[in-house]
């Protein structure tokens, strides 16, 4: 495969890198190290800037007004956009806009008018509620939230766990079991306004990602109109699964940015920090860590770009996407860990972004499917047959 960037991609990468270095990093110098948002004036100013650059709404399909980037270019941007302190989970603090919930592009026109278009205009926010206390890695079998039909409505009871953004969302995409099938054929997706009686955000769930939190939801006799079903009754898991596959490539790419920045910091530190009469960079122990970092970063980057190129060419990319997610999240964790070791004491302080990346990268090995599930996906594809 040819991983050289074409002229347009190089221009986009250079522009994004310059934007991060000149617009985002200086603002972070003044923010709390665990800050999750910019001051409103800065947010508005930078959003106006990305709109004028033609880069707003990166993940919005072109027919809905997005910039029409292919997966490879989007992955290259994700690598650049995450090269700052908050970049792993909040690349550029969202000033490049979001796409909303990708599943809503499959909605009916009436549903799009009600939820998708207001989301694309920035007027509404949604959240994705799949995982439950009974499990997240095998959601099709773990879902215990039940929905039963009552006339023109469905009544939901149950709970969801580790749901991001539910406390601020106007609507939620909720998956519930609606038949006796214990697996993936018995799950339906519902679009539910969060002010519906019976929809409760019960508590905040604190995690290693100290800047932000997940939530626990509870549904009590929650009545949802039939027209709020997304897709087919009992066809909801395909909708959820499609999202999980598509998200893996940009998710993997985002892991690489902090590793690249951490490596740059470690090289700079090693060249300028003396110990035992010479620079750290002259010591073999440090040199090997720097080299191992470079191997990890390049390996992760190649895997991400291979998956992206296969997706762009219309080939099957499930194995490559799973491999990219596994390798990028694990390799970047190793890189940041080594960079902390090279820095010594200052590496674990909040004076540098390394400690935040270290904590947050740990979550990346679990989020969007843990490493073990990625291996399971690859094993099914490689072994085939009855293992599929």
């Amino acid at each position: 495969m040819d991983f050289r960037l074409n002229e347009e991609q190089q221009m986009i990468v250079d522009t994004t890198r310059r934007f991060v270095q000149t617009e985002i990093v200086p603002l972070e110098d003044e923010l709390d190290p665990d800050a999750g948002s910019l001051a409103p004036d800065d947010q508005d100013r930078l959003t106006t800037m990305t709109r004028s650059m033609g880069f707003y709404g990166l993940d919005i399909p072109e027919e809905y007004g997005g910039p029409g980037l292919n997966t490879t270019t989007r992955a290259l941007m994700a690598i650049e956009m995450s090269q700052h302190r908050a970049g792993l989970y909040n690349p550029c603090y969202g000033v490049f806009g979001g796409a909303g919930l990708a599943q809503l592009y499959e909605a009916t026109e009436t549903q799009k008018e009600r939820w998708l278009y207001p989301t694309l205009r920035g007027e509404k926010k949604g959240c994705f509620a799949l995982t439950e206390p009974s499990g997240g890695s095998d959601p099709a079998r773990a879902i215990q939230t039940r929905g039963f039909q009552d006339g023109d409505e469905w009544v939901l009871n149950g709970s969801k766990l580790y749901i991001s953004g539910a406390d601020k969302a106007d609507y939620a995409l909720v998956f519930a079991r609606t038949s006796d099938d214990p697996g993936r054929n018995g799950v339906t997706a519902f679009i539910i306004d969060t002010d519906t009686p019976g929809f409760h955000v019960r508590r905040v769930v604190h995690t290693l990602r100290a800047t932000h939190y997940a939530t626990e939801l509870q549904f009590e006799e929650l009545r949802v109109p039939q027209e709020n079903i997304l897709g087919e009754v009992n066809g909801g898991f395909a909708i959820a699964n499609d999202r999980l596959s598509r998200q893996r490539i940009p998710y993997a790419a985002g892991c690489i940015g902090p590793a690249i920045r951490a490596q740059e910091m470690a090289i700079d530190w090693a060249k300028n920090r003396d110990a035992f009469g010479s620079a750290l960079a002259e010591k073999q122990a440090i040199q090997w860590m720097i080299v191992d970092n470079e191997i990890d970063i390049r390996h992760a980057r190649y895997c991400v770009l291979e998956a992206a190129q296969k997706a762009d060419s219309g080939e099957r990319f499930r194995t490559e996407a799973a491999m990219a997610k596994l390798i990028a999240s694990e390799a970047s964790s190793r890189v940041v860990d080594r960079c902390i070791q090279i820095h010594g004491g200052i590496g674990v302080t909040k004076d540098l972004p390394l400690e935040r990346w270290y904590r947050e990268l740990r979550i990346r090995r679990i989020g969007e499917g843990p490493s073990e599930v990625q291996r399971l996906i690859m094993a099914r594809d490689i072994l085939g047959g009855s293992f599929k």
Partner: protein
Amino acid sequence: MGIRLDKPWERLDSDSVSSLQAQLGVYQVADGDGNVLSVGYAGARHPFGIRSALEHEIRLHGKKATLFRYEFTSNYRSRWDELLMLHLHDHGQLPDHQRDEEGRVGRLSPN
């Protein structure tokens, strides 16, 4: 695990504040009747953690602020948001000088 900050109130003055460890955390400051005047956090930008943050609160509220309670936590940002959401749920609005935060924080409906 309880989600509210319901430890006993302590008297707020320079002596009590100076005896605290310089740690990261969250706190509430109240008047003599226990009416909450501030829900705050001590982050990594506070040179002496919760000490510096509470000294700022004394300067902000003057003699009106007489009580405080606190919790050390490295998750000060998410815990602060949680306490703001709980205050909003219980009182319908945030303390006067923190009303700007109402547009940012989410909504909880705790049991």
